[in-house]
């Protein structure tokens, strides 16, 4: 029995209601859990002496627009002692999604969550310092949402040179 199979069995036993789905794909395991019990699951994974997932390797936001539930947050947790990793996933519906923060479990989640908040607008409730990480502080919108305009500027060719040039906001001095 691999460490990950042991983990899945332990999670199913400990949180029978929270574990919604277990996906196996090309040797990767994804456990979909309920957002409400996410922190409890993470604490269990970290603190259980047998499981010992002591490292949050990655945290990412996903936008499934126009599907519903629209957003997901995926956590890749890693157990250094046994070299085992798997993915925890939380689905959230609506345009103003909220997920409880896991900064209390793994402090490294702090900046990951700030980045996901910046790019997807997913609010991590209880986060100690939820500010934008990459975009300027006064930026409007969340660029990695699929309905966000790319801010594309018309390409200047010889036939539309003057037209585009007239629109361009040159620095005065």
């Amino acid at each position, binding site marked *: 029995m691999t460490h990950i199979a042991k983990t899945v069995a332990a999670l199913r036993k400990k949180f029978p209601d929270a574990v919604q789905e277990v996906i196996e794909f090309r040797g990767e395991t994804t456990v979909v859990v309920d957002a409400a019990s996410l922190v409890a699951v993470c604490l269990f994974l970290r603190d259980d002496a047998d499981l010992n997932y002591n490292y949050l390797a990655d945290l990412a936001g996903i936008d499934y627009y126009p599907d519903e539930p629209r957003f997901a947050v995926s956590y890749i947790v890693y157990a250094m002692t046994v070299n085992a990793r798997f993915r925890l996933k939380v689905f959230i519906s609506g345009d103003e999604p909220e997920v409880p923060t896991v900064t209390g479990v793994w402090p490294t989640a702090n900046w990951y969550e700030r980045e996901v908040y910046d790019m997807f607008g997913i609010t991590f409730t209880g986060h100690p310092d939820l500010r934008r990480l990459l*975009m*300027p502080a006064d930026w409007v919108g969340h*660029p990695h949402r699929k309905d966000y305009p790319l801010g594309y*500027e018309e390409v*200047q060719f010889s036939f539309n040179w003057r037209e585009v040039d007239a629109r*361009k906001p*040159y*620095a005065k001095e």
Partner: protein
Amino acid sequence: MGLEQKLGNLGVVTMTLEQAVNWGRTNAMWPMLFGLACCAMEMISTQAPAYDVSRFGMELMRASPRQSDLMIVAGRVSRKMAPVLRRLYDQMPDPKWVLAMGDCASCGGIFNNYAIVQGVDEVVPVDVYVAGCPPRPEALIHGVMTLHAKVRKEKISQWK
């Protein structure tokens, strides 16, 4: 009887003040260290012995805007970086010039999206654009030469 015959050969050259000052300005430009992306690699090799831009009076890249009069914007400028760039430009003493190196600095290049300023001329007035992705050191030196030609043609009324 001319002055030269009376006083001997003094090596005097007559020229206008304009020419003298412009000559001095072109041959002692102090560029600011401003590598933002891959163009910075080419800028570094422009400085290195193989191309040796110090032949044209640019021995040192200054890390401080207060000691430099040429800003070589080498690389893409993100919208978050733009206020910083403008602030550095404002800190440079007059006379000052800006050289937009490479496609990203000139017009946004391949990064036609929300995060990148579509040409630094939206933020600071640019004197010379150097095309290329990234431009080779020869191209950058040609840009510097073009800037020198431009500075040599400046009139007193345009001086700052």
